[in-house]
């Protein structure tokens, strides 16, 4: 790792923190070791004694929102077992932030301002945003609409082989928005369209950088999704994590909110003009 990229990381982290401090966000710290990692079909947690290392701080942040905090952010290490490649590292730095009484479109405005701010380190074409619905992108590049006709295997394969490569042609940031409800994860459905989840993903230079939701605040629906996910994990022979009851209980008091998770190392990689995390991770 070059000296200039250590300096770059320091500068970008200062910019990111200033961006949130200036708007009155509270910087929070939440546990790295936990008993109940967030249950997602394809995300595996690293065991740590009788605990797990967090795959995301999401469930703690929502409990803080339920407890009355309105704008919070955290920058910290997260861990995902078995993920290694030019764009993956099993230990990586995540930036996560939430606003209450906001939805995924408010969060889109946030990320546009944030990316525009860090573009002083390298121009990522941030004055030329392209917003594409998942339906539009799949119809254009893969020839089918996954909304209403969702097929997990076909969706993942076409996303990786057809859609994501096509996103590289755009000069600026691309946002894929309005995902099929089957891949909503922790997002609520769109009030006007029950088959669509209020979720977006930001791609910079064809690389997935951030994921956002209008957060699901319905504890009954959230429990149903966790249980469905547990069943799928069990069928795939994957470890099934216990359901976080404290989190589900807090959802009853959680106001509507929007949230974003952003992969800091990938953003740094692009700002360094590199195509592998090797350029920005020391000791990899």
């Amino acid at each position, binding site marked *: 790792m070059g000296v200039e990229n250590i300096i770059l990381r320091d500068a970008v982290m200062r910019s990111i923190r200033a961006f949130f401090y200036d708007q009155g966000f509270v910087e929070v710290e939440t546990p790295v070791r936990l008993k109940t990692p967030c249950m*997602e*079909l*394809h*995300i595996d947690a690293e065991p740590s004694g009788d605990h797990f290392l967090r795959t995301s701080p999401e469930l703690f942040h929502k409990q803080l929102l339920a407890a009355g905090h309105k704008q919070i952010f955290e920058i910290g290490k997260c861990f995902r077992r*078995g*993920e*290694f*490649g*030019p*764009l*993956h590292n099993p230990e990586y730095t995540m930036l996560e932030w939430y606003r209450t009484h906001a939805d995924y479109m408010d969060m889109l405005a946030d990320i546009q301002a944030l990316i525009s701010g860090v573009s002083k380190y390298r121009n990522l074409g941030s004055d030329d945003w392209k917003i594409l619905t998942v339906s539009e992108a799949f119809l254009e590049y893969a020839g089918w609409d996954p909304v209403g006709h969702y097929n*997990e*295997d076909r*969706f*993942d*394969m076409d*996303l*990786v*082989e057809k859609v*994501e490569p096509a996103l590289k042609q755009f000069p600026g940031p691309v946002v894929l928005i309005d995902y099929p409800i089957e*891949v909503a*994860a922790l997002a609520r459905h769109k009030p006007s369209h029950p088959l669509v989840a209020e979720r977006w*993903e930001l791609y910079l230079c064809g690389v*997935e950088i951030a*994921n956002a939701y209008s957060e699901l605040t319905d504890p009954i629906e959230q429990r149903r999704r966790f249980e469905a996910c547990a069943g799928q994990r069990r069928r*795939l022979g994957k470890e099934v994590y216990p359901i976080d009851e404290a989190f589900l209980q807090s959802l009853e008091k959680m106001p509507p909110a929007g949230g974003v998770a952003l992969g800091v190392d990938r953003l740094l990689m692009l700002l360094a003009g590199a195509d592998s995390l090797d350029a920005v991770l020391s000791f990899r």
Partner: protein
Amino acid sequence: MYSASDLKKGLKIEIDGDPCMITNFEFSKPGKGQALYRCKIKNLISGNTFDKTYRSSEKINRCSLMSYDFTFSYIDGENYVFSNNETYEEALLGIDLIGDLKNFIVDDMSVEILFHNDRALEITLPNFVEMEIAATEPGARGDTATNVMKPASLANGYEINVPIFINEGDVIRIDTRTGTYADRVSKR
């Protein structure tokens, strides 16, 4: 069988009975989706390159490649015949497989042949071979500069650039990997 997480650049696998090599490999995991392993793969028989994406649940056939030492015997029409140093079994290699290396195969040369099951895939010659210059313009007497080159040809017609001081009848060493002049072995 390999599982998808064993895949890496340079690994040899078998697809539809053909030996193949992974020439490029990328771990990919879109959004909340499954882990996918995007590969560029070269078919070692046809030489064709293609893209293939494996899911983490997929199994991939191993490829058994073995190489053996052979000695060149003779040419039979379009085939070069070699005999196995241990078993004396003969192997016939077509000119299409040998390619330009045919210019550097000499009597009793020891070679290595790579097989997939019973099919020869690749022949490797010794890195250097000694050959006699059949024709070249005479060089200026006393000129021993090695950086000035001129065309020359071998008895089999192979054209090669040699230093200006090389003459007809000289024996030179040729690097079989590049087909270029290495040094002079003896003067006529």
